[in-house]
């Protein structure tokens, strides 16, 4: 069905494109949020993604639509925060989310504290680890799809996901140690 919608949209059928947006807006919004967008900025970013996608609709092959979707979403999210430095964004995010996890309106869909905490830890990861991890676990992309989306080699994708997992595990172990009052040697 997506292929037919894309074909129609490429021919200028805006109602087909509107339907495409309905189909994929959830994916775009979730991916943008998982990549680090603030919850309140997600609708604006998503709208910009679909505007940009339409501009390039006629240029790509139909079977590579989702690759484009992720690429454009990632770049649009980066663009949205380009003027802020990474540090000030992290500070802002941690200030808003880290002190009182789960008490901001954006996190109400993450029901458990464990989920909110894991989301926070993922956001603390460097982007080069966070994005492959997000694509793999939450967008169910294969290694080769991730390599195409991020213009990385397959080996680099695997290494970065492996590293991301290790960093998250370490973060959790440290947290558990703090909570149980153990000190590390």
């Amino acid at each position, binding site marked *: 069905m997506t292929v037919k919608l894309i074909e129609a949209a490429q021919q200028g059928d805006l109602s087909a494109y*509107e339907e495409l947006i*309905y189909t994929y*807006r959830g994916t775009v919004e979730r991916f943008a949020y998982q990549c680090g967008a603030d919850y309140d900025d997600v609708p604006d970013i998503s709208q910009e993604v679909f505007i940009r996608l339409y501009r390039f609709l006629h240029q790509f092959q139909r079977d590579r639509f989702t690759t484009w979707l992720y*690429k*454009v979403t990632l770049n649009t999210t*980066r663009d949205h925060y380009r003027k802020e430095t990474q540090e000030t964004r992290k500070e802002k995010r941690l200030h808003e989310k880290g002190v009182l996890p789960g008490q901001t309106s954006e996190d109400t869909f993450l029901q458990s504290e464990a989920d909110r905490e894991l989301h926070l830890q993922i956001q603390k990861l460097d982007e080069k680890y966070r994005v492959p991890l997000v694509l793999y676990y939450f967008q169910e992309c294969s290694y080769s799809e991730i390599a195409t989306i991020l213009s990385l080699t397959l080996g680099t994708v*695997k290494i970065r996901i492996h590293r991301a*997992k290790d960093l998250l595990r370490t973060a959790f172990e440290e947290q558990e140690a703090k909570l149980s009052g153990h000190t590390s040697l």
Partner: protein
Amino acid sequence: MDTHHFEERMNKLKKGYEEMEERTDPKAVISALTNKEPERSKRPKKNWIVPLISVAAIFTLFLFAMSLVNPPTNSASEEEKEEVSESGLDFVYISQEIDRQYAEIREEARVKMGLDDEEFSQIQAVVYADQGRNHFMSVDFIDYHDTYGDTEESIIETAVDELSWILTTPEEFLAQQYENSFHTKRSLEESGYVLSSYMRKLLDFEEVGSDVVASDVQIPESQLPTLSQILHPKFEGLIKFYALGKLTEAGEMIYPYELTARSLIEIEESISDEAITIEGESHRVANLLYLTLKGTMSENQKDHQAILFENGVLKKEVQDQWKHLAEQPENTVVHAVFAPIVKEMLDTGWTSSTTWENISYEDAQIYIREMDSAKYKVAQSKGDAVLVDAQFEQRIHNYFKELALVPGLDKYKALSPEEIVGLYHYYGQLGELELRYELYIEDERYLQIPKDEYLASGSIEYLPLQKYVKAYTFINQGLDLNGNETGLVEVELTERGASTHDTPVMLFQLIKTEDGWKMPFMPTQ
């Protein structure tokens, strides 16, 4: 946090994300599109060949360099560069920023290597990087990324990352790999990537015009410990072989003779794995075999005698090495080559062997091709069916009685694959989930289920063994990607068993470990 727990949490979070309300208003998007008239570029659209930058790293440098030998014919004029793309990309800013950042990383690399500019510019990798800078600053490259909606910063980052990688020295590359490995050896596939990338870097960091070719690349011995720590153990023989180095001009060894025998054994161990091949490098291994046999690359019998014999008798050092090679497992090529030679030598008091005299360099090449291709022979072999009769059931019961309270996961080491599956069923029949858990493999490279979770999953009661299973048959399947021997046990079910599972035959997977045959956590096929 173990792997299973981690995966569970990620899965739970994924479900949490799916509860996120969708807030994008499609009508607002359409309205924005219809109110905005997109600007059409006056420059004609071009068909770009997708740059090869994003393909596997081992080919990146070679193919990338080749593409630069014939630079694109539509390189930008200054006038074109002044244009802004239809999405607003500033070509001039991008190319200048790439140029500026490249100059910085280039200088940094030069200082790290302690070379002056002239010496530094003579390194092949630096030549590639300099050419790469030109490519990345071209309109073609920038325009290509523009069509993907990439931002200026991401285009610059892509270019600079690639150029940095080209200038990363072999030592730095290994250090990064070591840091990223967290003391865990890479899988076979990743090891292949790391080793081939490293070898490529060794080649690229030769001087321009050097006569070193890919097949001559030598791993510095000082890097062997680091490589051993990073790579899968199966690569051990291969990396030591690559550290052996070139022959002298006279075609003689420049390393101790004993190393050749050891290297031959180790390299056969390495390339016996499906994932590792020496195709393209087989002449180096053939040289090694020939040298071990003749002591020199010369084909002159008198030279062989002069090097390997003393007073008409094969030197003791050589005798010991050949005996060691002949004692290797019968299915190895080194055994096949040296066993008959050693026998003839022993019969003549280590003075002669017709087989040895007749072996030529061409024979050595054939032996090495055989060594590399042996792994491609299907390793599957089916054993005889083991009937589940009263005797077999008693044997399984005795294992249960003897081993139930014995500690240690190696207690089942002596059991055959058929007995392991029999015990698995027997434990199920008895409801002994804790004992059955001991039969599973404990190895992070395979799916793991924590014990408490497994025990909480409840018992599965099997019928008494003889009423359930007719026979077990083991099928050897050769090595898996982790280098472990694997097999299947074909379980032929009784009529009652078959009606329970709706099939007359089930297959159970098994993996051979140091502690004997173990089951993966989802063993049935």
